[in-house]
């Protein structure tokens, strides 16, 4: 059926595109899948299969090792929400949430300042951003020494004549505040660079026009910069919320979760890998995942113009 063009009665080809042979059509249809084979296999193996398994484990009493596991219904979930010590970790997230607010405000402030002409601009930009690139374990050690007795912080305070023998990581409140402070130190730079990029993509004529109209710096910020960076701002808010809920590295490295600094992820890791409570840990992970998805969903609903246009 392929080679009909040789016949004398063949119609002129110009009207319709020549019919593509079936085999070639099948091959063309297959080509994208050849490229997607490996990516999709990895995606399903390492993202979707774990999520599905995790939900399944969360209804069992599995310990992660033995071949035996029993269906326990919603038991893990009730345990999670009724045992206060398991629930307490959410209060620790509060410290990191508060820190995020400080972080975003600070980043916004510095981004605005540095988007105008400032001397040593690149130096300040680099200094503010660099902490974000540093290895988390190294940051943990730098700040363990910072909060040591007689460490950096105490020495600096002594310079100002304040001799404190305060154990910075000694009580839950002060330890969590200190750790949250470290995460501000670490992540402010990322937010700052994102804001700066957004501010710089605002056309310069807008400022000139505003200046001609007699707008002062605050008004320029309020009416030009703020709306211009709104999408990035909401993005950082959601990144911060999910980051606060899933804080792990800094508290784990610095205190190992001692003195009331255990976060949700530290607890989950301990439940799963130290106490072999895979079922309970999975339930905890499902709860965290649902919270983060809800936050993301709320953000997408609140700011519909910040749509991801992957297609």
């Amino acid at each position, binding site marked *: 059926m392929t080679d009909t063009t040789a016949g004398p009665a063949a119609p002129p080809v110009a009207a319709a595109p020549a019919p593509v042979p079936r085999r070639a059509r099948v091959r063309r249809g297959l080509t994208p899948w050849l490229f*997607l084979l490996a990516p999709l296999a990895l995606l399903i193996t390492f993202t979707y299969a774990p999520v599905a398994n995790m939900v399944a484990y969360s209804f069992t009493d599995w310990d992660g090792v033995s071949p035996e596991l029993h269906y326990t219904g919603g038991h893990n979930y009730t345990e999670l929400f009724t045992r206060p010590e398991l629930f307490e970790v959410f209060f620790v997230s509060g410290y990191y949430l508060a820190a995020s607010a400080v972080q975003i405000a600070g980043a916004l402030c510095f981004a605005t300042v540095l988007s105008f002409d400032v001397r040593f601009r690149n130096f300040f930009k680099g200094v503010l951003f660099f902490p974000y690139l*540093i290895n988390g374990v190294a940051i943990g050690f730098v700040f363990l020494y910072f909060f040591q007795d007689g460490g950096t912080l105490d020495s600096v305070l002594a310079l100002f004549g304040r001799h404190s023998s305060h154990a910075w990581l000694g009580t839950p409140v002060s330890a969590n505040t200190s750790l949250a402070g470290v995460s501000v130190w670490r992540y402010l730079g990322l937010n700052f*660079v994102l804001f700066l990029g957004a501010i710089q993509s605002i056309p310069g004529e807008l400022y000139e026009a505003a200046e001609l109209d007699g707008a002062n710096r605050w008004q320029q910020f309020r009416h030009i910069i703020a709306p211009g960076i709104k999408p990035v701002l909401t993005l950082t808010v959601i990144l911060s919320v999910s980051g606060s809920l*899933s804080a792990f590295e800094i508290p784990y490295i610095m205190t190992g979760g001692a003195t009331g600094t255990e976060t949700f992820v530290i607890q989950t890791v301990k439940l799963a890998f130290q106490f072999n409570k895979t079922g309970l840990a999975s339930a905890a992970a499902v709860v965290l995942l649902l919270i983060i998805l809800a936050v993301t969903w709320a953000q997408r609903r609140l700011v519909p113009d910040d749509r991801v246009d992957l297609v």
Partner: protein
Amino acid sequence: MTRRIVARTLVYTSLAAASLVVLLPLGVVLMTSLKTPEEMADDGGALTLPGDPLNFRNYATAFQDGRMLSAFGNTAFILVFAIGGTVLIGSMTAYAIDRFTFRFRKLVVALFLVAALVPGVTTQVATFQIVNGFGLFDTRWAPIALYMGTDIVSIYIFLQFVRSIPLSLDEAARLDGANAFTIYRKIIFPLLKPAIATVVIVKGITVYNDFYIPFLYMPSEDLGVISTSLFRFRGPFGAHWETISAGAVLVILPTLIVFLFLQRFIYNGFMKGATR
């Protein structure tokens, strides 16, 4: 006019204060790493200068006893494969999604997008069982597979670039008899160089700094990457802050060098990555 001067002073004071807050903890650790154990015991406080600014003995201890050489080796091994894989996977996905119309294309895109919403820290309990099932646990291939997995950020960066390559190039090649794979290899991939550079930098820094995945999946001591090897300093070196500091500086230094040389690309990379 005076208001302007006040504002300027305020701006520079705040910037200087912020720089101090960033640099002071790092500077103190650098100074500590150059001190002798006796100087540390002296209790002169953290801000005293080391007696001999060229005392690199702690670095030697940290490098040898902390097994930093094998840590850098393992990290390099993982970096090469994880980044190579990410570049291939990301560019192939982007090419397939942008250049072909096929059934379920929307579904495939949605699968990649939704995966981006699932934070890695939440699923590790279950991912662990899968990695273990493949027999990858406690090998260097576990983190490599996980890093390659689905890096939606790199897929997105590649997609932006593939879109900017004119379709007429593909068509011309197709007329010359090139098939899809040749087009990808000979035309698309070479033109993606700037995107590849971005992905290599962003991914490289992420992998170099990651702690969670190697910590969970490679517990044996021979397989320490720089994060986990440095983390192990807590045991043997306990309160030897001069050695721990030297280890921390050893780990930070490569990042600093890369940052100083590639500053502009790094900012752009992280901006593109996050604001996708």
